[in-house]
């Protein structure tokens, strides 16, 4: 990648923000984001990540991007996973293991149903979205 100028940086930012709005991540409309901070990894996030990839592969699901993120602040219920599916609320699941991962693929992504007993909420407002007060 070439070094960018100020103008190019601003254009890049705008484009990425638009992509986020459109929920378009590398051309896919669904996203599974696994918390991969040390707290998550220590709790078994890598196993969860592998379970997702395996399950999506087995079910031949092509429109889901699996990415990683840092600590969401829900350390006491790690591993945590955020699931983004158009038409459904963005959901954060906690205490995820390989079984729950498979359930998420089957029920949430395919069946468009939330998984009970595993839903958690972000502990704070997103100050970058609202400007915060």
């Amino acid at each position: 990648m070439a070094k960018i100028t100020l103008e190019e940086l601003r254009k890049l930012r705008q484009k990425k923000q638009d992509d986020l709005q459109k929920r378009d991540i590398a051309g896919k409309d669904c996203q599974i984001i696994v918390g991969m901070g040390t707290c998550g990894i220590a709790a078994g996030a890598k196993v969860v990540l592998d379970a997702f990839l395996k399950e999506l592969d087995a079910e031949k699901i092509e429109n889901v991007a699996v990415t990683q993120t840092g600590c969401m602040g829900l350390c006491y219920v790690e591993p945590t996973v955020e699931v983004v599916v158009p038409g459904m609320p963005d959901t954060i699941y906690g205490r995820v293991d390989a079984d729950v991962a498979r359930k998420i693929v089957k029920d949430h992504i395919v069946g468009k149903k939330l998984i009970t007993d595993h839903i958690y909420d972000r502990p704070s407002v997103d100050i970058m979205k609202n400007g915060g007060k």
Partner: protein
Amino acid sequence: MAFRNYILVCGGTACESSRSKEIYENLKAEAKKQGVEDVVQVVQTGCFGFCEQGPIVKILPEDSFYVKVQPSDAAELIAEHIIKGREVKRLLYDKDKASKHAQVEDIKFYQKQFRIVLRNCGFIDPENINEYIARDGYAALERALFDMTPDDIIAELKTAGLRGRGGAGFPTWMKWNFSKNVESEIKYVVCNADEGDPGAYMDRSTLEGDPHSILEAMTICGKCIGAHKGFIYIRAEYPLAIHRLEVAMKQSRELGLLGHDILGSGFDFDIEIRLGAGAFVCGEETALLQSVMGRRGMPVPRPPFPAVKGLWDQPTVINNVETWANIPVIIHKGGEWFSKIGDADSHGTKVFALTGKICNSGLVEVPMGTTLREIVFDIGGGIAHGKKFKAVQTGGPSGGVITTENLDTPIDFGSLIKIGSMMGSGGMIVMDEDDCMVDVAKFYLNFTVDESCGKCMPCRIGGKTMLGILEKITAGNGTMHDLDQLTEIGETMKKSALCALGQTSPNPVLSTMRFFRDEYLAHIVDKKCPAGKCKKLVTYSIDPAKCKGCTACARRCPVEAISGTIKQPHKIDTSKCIKCGECLKTCKFGAVSVH
């Protein structure tokens, strides 16, 4: 096919006890009864953390937040909200908000946290610079490079009132200003990522989750003071954070946001990573700088201060990771915005690593001025397993304990010092009735004695001597005179040790002695440990009334301290007993007890 609505019923323990399970079942039944079970899905979730207003029910996608819901409300919720699309106002949290869609984000008290430092953690892939950029990443750098002078940057920080988050709370604008005003061709910017407090991992999570914020902040500082080289001194025990930083630096350099002629501004700045090698004392700024220069990590006297004469005798700004993480937000949103958060003594937020005997352990970031009670009980969810709160320890090995009587202390730099503790870097360890405060003091002192660099006599000798006395006390050989000696040595170390490690290492001891003197007296006078923690002071015994003589414990005992014939009550020889606890674990009849 997705559902049109989702009803989330909070399933935390508090809500459980208020019948949230019943609410959940009723809602499901009503949905079926009213024929909308294909339109709305009802799920039970984890704790939302708003226990005092529970049971909580949240309905998406409107984000309607219903509080104090009763099982009997289920029918109305389905009929009104789901079928007719009208919110049930009497159950809404903020009744004054007449708007159709009450935004959850506006509710301050529900979500007591306010994440500035951790703003991107959990929102972005830290190994993808585009995601950082999309969330206004590097916008602050744009401003700093093209729209602001160094004095403007200082002014913005001054308005913000940001104080160092490493523990000392020194005004950041002042430190940068000192360096800016020294005439020198060569200056340095350093990030202290040697987070050493036991139980603290705020900096680690920030670096793992949002490494670019640090890079951006250091570059802004470079522009402000006139430095072109930065160092991130990070402890080698954080390999993931190191990896994420390296990836971030690589991506940043590729785009030209780090290195030569950044964004075509003509400004050069690059950063090098230096690894720590297992010394807690290298988190002390002067010792850290010695280590960067390849020397033994021992603190040196100040003045001169690093801001004026630091690395290789050049002006050096050194700040903690958390301080750095605040910088881009302050430059981007303005110091004015930042100054409104927090209280008069301390602006902004503070990240705490809430751990120990707590339900919801994890990283919490709260505005300064939030009380300890709110953190421990509201955000933390109270003490786990129904035990009683005893104390919370802030500031790691440099801090003191805070008891119930001071739980309403607002968290800011000044208030904590008044009650004999300190903010420190943000470790917050909660203790319950099973924790022995003498043992806690001994644990921390053991740590600081091990980590003492050994240069100055008060810390090297004083710390070890105090530890020896504590070991005497927890072994049952303490005397009242020992308490006087602990105070004497502790006070001396506070006045004459060379660096903050030595000066603050007596704090856990002095603080527990102040607030839990009765526990010390129990150990010394009664030779007993009330919490049952200190091994040498507990005795194991078998209740002959409950003992069935099954010999299971005797067979388990590694030192053959239990004697008795089969089917007859057994006895423990306390002189042989090593208090390993195996007999207690083995006995199926509850005949073994510990005092």
